[in-house]
């Protein structure tokens, strides 16, 4: 077994890949209200959206129990930074990349098979089984986050 391990282990991400996958810092200052940016972390697209008041209200007014994957908007953002939505932009259906600010819920729309996510990145309609994942991140200052 021990002899086999090096032959299996070598397939895992190598040191440089792990290093490149280290946390990244993103400055939020240039993102105006109602805008979003897409950054790449570990080869995955991360949407950072500066939500409008309307978007936040929409996300919070819907009864949580009526959702396919029940989760409150508060649980998906950081307290005190309610306008910032940070989600991994990979559709939970078959891994496509949804388009921001499209669809019927003011959130994301996946062009592959028509899954629609709301302004909290929660699945509302279509074949996807789960909400858009929230990556590990924290605020290092009022206008800067660290992803990872």
């Amino acid at each position: 077994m021990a002899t086999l391990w090096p032959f299996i282990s070598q397939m895992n991400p190598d040191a440089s890949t792990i290093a490149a996958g280290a946390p990244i810092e993103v400055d939020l200052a240039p993102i105006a209200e109602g805008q979003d940016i897409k950054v790449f972390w570990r080869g995955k697209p991360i949407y950072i959206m500066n939500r409008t008041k309307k978007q936040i209200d929409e996300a919070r007014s819907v009864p949580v129990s009526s959702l396919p994957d029940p989760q409150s908007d508060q649980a998906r953002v950081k307290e005190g930074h309610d306008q910032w939505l940070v989600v991994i932009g990979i559709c939970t259906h078959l891994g496509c990349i949804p388009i921001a600010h499209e669809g019927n819920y003011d959130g994301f729309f996946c062009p592959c098979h028509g899954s629609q996510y709301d302004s909290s990145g929660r699945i509302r309609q279509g074949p996807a089984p789960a909400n858009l994942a929230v990556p590990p991140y924290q605020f290092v200052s009022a206008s800067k986050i660290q992803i990872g």
Partner: protein
Amino acid sequence: MSGPSDYQPTNPTLRWIERRLPIMGLMHSSFVAYPTPRNLNYWWTFGAILSMMLGVMILSGVILAMHYTPEATMAFRSVESIVRDVNYGWLLRNMHASGASMFFLAVYIHMFRGLYYGSYKEPREILWILGVIIYLLMMATGFLGYTLPWGQMSFWGATVITNLFSAIPYFGESIVTLLWGGYSVGNPTLNRFFSLHYLLPFVIVGVVVLHVWALHVAGQNNPAGVEAKTEKDTVAFTPYATIKDLFGSCCFLILFAWFIFYMPNYLMEADNYIPANPGVTPAHIVPEWYYLPFYAMLRSIPNKLAGVVVMFSSILILAFLPWLDTAKTKSCKYRPLAKQFFWMFVVVGVLLGWLGGKPPEGIYVIASRILTFCYFAYFLIVLPLLSRIEKPRPVPNSIADDVLAKTGSRSAPMVSTVIMLAVAGALFAGSAQNARAEEEMVPPSQQWSFSGPFGKYDRGALQRGLKVYKEVCSACHSLSYIAFRNIADPGGPGYSEAQAAAFASDYKIKDGPNDQGEMFERPGRPADYFPSPFPNEQAARVANGGALPPDLSLITKARSYERGFPRFVFDFFTQFQEQGPNYVDAILQGFEEKPPAGVTIPEGSYYNKYFPGHAIKMPKPLSDGQVTFDDGSPATVAQYAKDVTTFLMWTAEPHMEARKRLGLQVLVFLILFTGLMYFTKKKVWADAH
């Protein structure tokens, strides 16, 4: 059947070798003296055809690997360089790419033949299981190879398929990371896929040797499904089977050549001519046609893990076939019920394949579920049940009797024909419905000088198109796979080398660093590539309202539209493959000042009749009188569009004329040779019937 050979070479040197390594005796007993049933039909030539295809794939693959670069930023370009710059590179690439499809076509026929004639039954169980292993290895090899060109479909196909493993409970995510060698599909993934894609064909060769060995121990099955008993039942492998296999292979090669030389992109996805982009997913992720039935089964199951299990079971279940179907009669020829269910199973397989290419919505999902059930029912319910209740018709006493009797029921082909027609009708109805919905979007089919088997580029159009590109398109669009030297290439715009050099010297090319360590600009040389209008993607996006003007080198192959059933079947025979040019031409002429009532176009976008979604970021690029032609051609948008599209077809397929010319020679030769083979075969078999 193949005992120790009594073969003795007459040449003393060969005899010397033979005493030490009896390899010639082995070959002689396996491929010369080896007795084959005398009633084999042409479905049995597919074994030889598959061996030939394996050889073709390994040969072309090893050569391609000499020119290919398995690195994420260079892989796509290296494939383009093979096609454009390597001598006969286009031939080798087409051979390998369509060869994969041909290989699978042959293997499916080979498998259905085994299914129909009960070739998996005692004493050929191991032989059959080895075949299933070869099929699994082929699927893995095909998938790995499809990743290597690193186009959009390669990348996203690899993403979806590797993600299947994430369905495994507990270890799923770690296994996927292990497969990727990173946190997403990337350069490490490409590297290992290349390594494995090179390895697996040789593993296949190994298993094929075992497969043939097992075949030569058990002996071949035959259409009658009775074992050979006496000398009268068999003929020697050489010349009888050899010549028949040769004839079969030649026929198959004609089909293969048709694809290589005339329809190289017929089975390819247009999206794979767009370099891999981890930030954008193609609208439809579709695997190669030979995986579609299994893809349909995967998607029909709402639970991710269950879907993956069902998909893998659908293949593994084949390995258990010898124990699921316990009927004593082998051949479906003598099993009236099994025969009908067999044809239904074929139809189920084809329909699943069709559904695999459809979006997983509404009626398609329901249909896939029903057919997935039918697929498994055939193995788990129908076959075990039939072996208990079916009353087979009497089988002939011996193969010799079968050959003499020459009987055949005429009713069963009728049944299968009716089923096939019903299916075709259903498909037709479905597609007609689709066609109606998409009517307004489909670009009109234009007359192109380069279409058809004798198509050639119109030199004047290429030269005018180059002028339109240079004066208009090049402001935003790069053409980075084309070098200035290419415009003097045979089969191109027909400029002389001096003209190409003069053309190049009009451009300023950034070069360096010089001895002082600084970058500098110099006049272009023929070996330089067309410079890009923007230094990088971000600059291009900023200048174009956030949209990236695509590189135009491959645009006429990277854009397409659905032709729908049954038109795509006719396209195969008429060699229609001008969807790309039709689309590009239509886009250039499809701008309208005002969108029709009820259509709103976002700020900064323009209405275009043929652009998917109608809102295009490119403003109307061409207007009448914008470019003046020296040869007096009309300075109209229609003329510009036509010329620049012709030019862009040439940039996408620079060796098209050479391809079609060589194709004609190869086909004429193959047809003559096949004819000769046919008469040789008739002569050889004259005394055996």
